[in-house]
């Protein structure tokens, strides 16, 4: 890591503990109290992890999504061929949007995708899908830019809660 965490802490973001706590209140609320189901959020988060190339994020699993049915047989299909995969159509539609949002032209949502998204999700769910994806991208980029972020073993962690924190393994020295 190109910047060390404060002594006894897990991430360099804790050099600003109040800000990091404010982030965690938001992120925990988004995951536990949000309107979009956790498996769909997790699909978006994991797609971002692969696109952004974060070795930590792509091997973390949030327990709530796993409990909601997102097993490894589905996770394995969140790759570049997701459009032709056996993933449920809801996930495939989400992934098409996620790829646009994460790409160089996030405004390029074409009319066909727009219609499909609105047939599949409520407006509130769409907003959370976008929000989850974009924030996850920021987290992944932080790990990659200040890393490099190493590949970790598959690790199941509790779903973030407002009073807690995202619980990745400690930043590598």
């Amino acid at each position, binding site marked *: 890591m190109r*910047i060390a965490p404060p002594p006894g802490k897990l991430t360099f973001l804790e050099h600003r503990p109040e800000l990091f706590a404010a982030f965690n209140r938001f992120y925990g609320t*988004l995951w536990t109290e949000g309107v979009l189901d956790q498996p769909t959020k997790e699909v978006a988060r994991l797609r971002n992890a692969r696109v952004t*190339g974060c070795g930590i994020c792509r091997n973390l699993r949030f327990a709530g999504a796993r409990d909601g049915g997102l097993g490894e047989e589905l996770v394995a299909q969140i790759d570049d061929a997701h459009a032709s995969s056996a993933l449920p159509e809801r996930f495939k539609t989400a992934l098409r949007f996620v790829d646009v949002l994460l790409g160089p032209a996030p405004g390029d949502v074409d009319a066909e995708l727009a219609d499909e998204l609105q047939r599949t999700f409520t*407006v509130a769910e769409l907003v959370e899908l976008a929000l989850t994806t*974009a924030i996850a991208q920021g987290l992944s*980029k932080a790990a990659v830019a200040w890393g490099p972020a190493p590949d970790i073993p598959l690790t199941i962690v509790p779903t973030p809660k407002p009073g807690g924190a995202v619980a990745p393994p400690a930043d590598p020295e």
Partner: protein
Amino acid sequence: MATSWIRDPRARSLDELLSLSPAADTLRAWDVAMWRDPATDPLLLELCRLRIGQMLGLDPRTRPVSPAAVAAGLDDATIADLPRWPTSLRFGARERAALAFAEQWLFDPSGVTDDDCAALRGAIGDPGCAAFTMGLALSEAMLRLELALGVARTAGA
């Protein structure tokens, strides 16, 4: 006003859309804390937000800017010179360290180098880097949301 592809009367602005999520209040609280944090340099963060927006297709001359950045000295001439930051005399070593990091972050964070990180740490310190990183993450996220949801703002909108 932008015309969103979302067929809903609330798709007039990002704020209205975000209000549909139970996480909206905590998101706003994080954003407010970001700009008020003593380790945040509002001028640097705003320059990088504008530059990221520009690279995503948003004209920085038409974007709303943080009052804190204006109070810290951000002006129209500096905004107009943003594409020329590597050579423009309006940008010093501190601004260049932040903008170089932000540009690399946007499209290929794996290309951020040891030197990029060292330059930024030298310019704003470790607490500053923590605040800047969270600010960059949040700023880019909000820009991407505006664009993807079709509600990109311009000044006065």
